[in-house]
């Protein structure tokens, strides 16, 4: 690896890190906080979870609980979260499965080819063995 390549790699990594730091600072300063936990009484929730007032959640939970039927028409909130609100997550999960199966296909494909070729040989061998 030449020096120019190393310098280019270091510079690109630094640019990515600077962009990430800028994004974090921007999000911290400019974007308003949707949930800060100030309305949640943790002691009361822990002591008496049955009678705790959950009618007014805040943050993202507010949107998901109150506007789910209007936005998605899905009775099952969990599937709405999995396939709509967090669709990227499900996409990544299914691609993990795809990658795992592709990897095992590459590794075990040699054996699989042998198995497919071995059937005829095996039956012939078995017949020959029985005759003998």
């Amino acid at each position: 690896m030449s020096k120019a390549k190393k310098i280019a790699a270091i510079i690109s990594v630094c640019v990515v890190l600077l962009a990430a730091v800028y994004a974090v600072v921007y999000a911290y300063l400019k974007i308003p906080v949707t949930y800060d936990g100030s309305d949640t009484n943790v002691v009361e929730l822990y002591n008496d979870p049955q009678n705790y007032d959950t009618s007014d959640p805040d943050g993202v939970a507010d949107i998901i609980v109150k506007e789910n039927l209007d936005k998605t028409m899905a009775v099952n909130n969990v599937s709405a979260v999995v396939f709509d609100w967090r669709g990227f997550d499900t996409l990544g999960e299914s691609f993990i499965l795809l990658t795992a199966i592709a990897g095992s296909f590459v590794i075990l494909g040699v054996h699989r080819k042998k198995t497919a070729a071995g059937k005829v040989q095996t039956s012939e061998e078995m017949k020959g063995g029985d005759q003998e």
Partner: protein
Amino acid sequence: MKFKNGITEKNVIVKCAADKILPFALVFGIYIILFGTISPGGGFQGGVITASAVLLLYIGYGYSTASDAVKQEVLRVCEPIGATLYVILGLCGIVLGSVFCRNVFFADGKIGDLISAGNISFMGWTVGFKVLTGIGFLILLMLGLLAPEFKKSGAADGELMVDEDDDEKEVDE
């Protein structure tokens, strides 16, 4: 037909149990995939339950019957098709003027019907299809290593990777 590990010689009880459980497993898994959006369940779980039919076939009848009944090539081709369909359904949200994976086709039917949830239902079905074909293919691929035909053919070729089998061959000779 005698093999060392006795995979092809099946007990009658095991075979009958596999026969009886197989249709129920298929119907139950497909039910879970189809109704994943309006009841507990979903694509991943239903796909794995449906793919267990391959395992039941293997338990009851051995590897050769299972690999004859379920085509590996079809499963291998169908899995990326399911993943592509998921991405296309997700991109429908962008095409119709919203964000990725946004639910767009949901104006049909009453709340609680099978396709009332629109895009969420279709995406659940594609995930179920993908997991069903993928896990079925993976099970067949891995069980192929346990098949007695493979062991026989490997010993005949003399190219088996495991050293123990070479030792066994020497002992047999």
